[in-house]
């Protein structure tokens, strides 16, 4: 919630969400309010930095694995093509291969 201006005075409130229940804490307008404001600003900054770092980490790892996932796709499709060209048909969503022209 942060700073609220009431009758030309600024008061600091902190809202927290715990299991869907929002609790608001009042800090007044003195030193305690300034300290709470600084602590919250620091925590928000830290959280933003963490989000940024996580995003970079996830993107980096996903990119590193992309080529390998592409390879797996091609290997699986080529194996399928090999089966089809050998006269089989994928049955039951690929859990079984049936010979079609063996007779």
């Amino acid at each position: 919630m942060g700073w609220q201006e009431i009758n030309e005075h600024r008061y600091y409130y902190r809202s927290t969400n715990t299991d869907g229940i929002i609790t608001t804490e009042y800090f007044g307008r003195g030193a305690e309010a300034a300290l709470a404001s600084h602590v919250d600003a620091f925590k928000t900054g830290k959280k933003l930095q963490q989000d940024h770092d996580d995003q970079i980490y996830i993107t980096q790892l996903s990119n590193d694995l992309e080529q390998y996932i592409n390879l797996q796709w091609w290997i699986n499709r080529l194996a399928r093509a090999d089966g089809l060209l050998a006269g089989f048909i994928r049955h039951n969503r690929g859990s079984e291969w049936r010979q079609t022209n063996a007779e």
Partner: protein
Amino acid sequence: MLNDLLIQSTDSSNNSLKECPDREDFQNAVDGANLGDTDKLLELQQLLDKHPEIWNQLGDLSKHSVMSLVRMIAGENRCLHESIIRSVQQLTLDLSESQQPTTVERLLISGVVCAWLEVQLAIEKSTSLGEESLRRSRFHLKLRESANRRFESSVRVLQQYRIREVKLVRLKGKIAAEVQARQADYTQILAAEYPWLEERTVLGE
């Protein structure tokens, strides 16, 4: 094959699938052929004939993938790096049933090896971080699930390939018996009555 795995590809330009057919076209041809569409089956054959390099490229890419996954798991730890390489060698050896597996089988084995490495990577990532954020934990959990799924799938594909091979060998035996009974020429009968079986032997070689 074992030594091939140890050769680290240095030319990154060789690691992309430049000469592969279009992914969508290939998928359509595979799907159509599976529905019994003979035109699509022919198209699939032509796509593979037009891109004979695909087998080599996938082979190169699989070697590169193995090495990059090993590097991702081991990092700067040379001892761990060497241990993983030996485990990869052993796994490849265990999975190879014959001394000279076919190109398709080699690719499928390398697919299983890569998937196994991905599972190791996912386990390593999800256990090495002490105080990781909720977002990273979720990502690691998803990575582990996907890696396990891909590993199971790659093992199943290899298993299905081997079942198909056994069925084909049985069919060839049946044809040979039939040929013997009719006192005909095996290659002629194969070419006339089972052309797909004859053509298949050259696939990927």
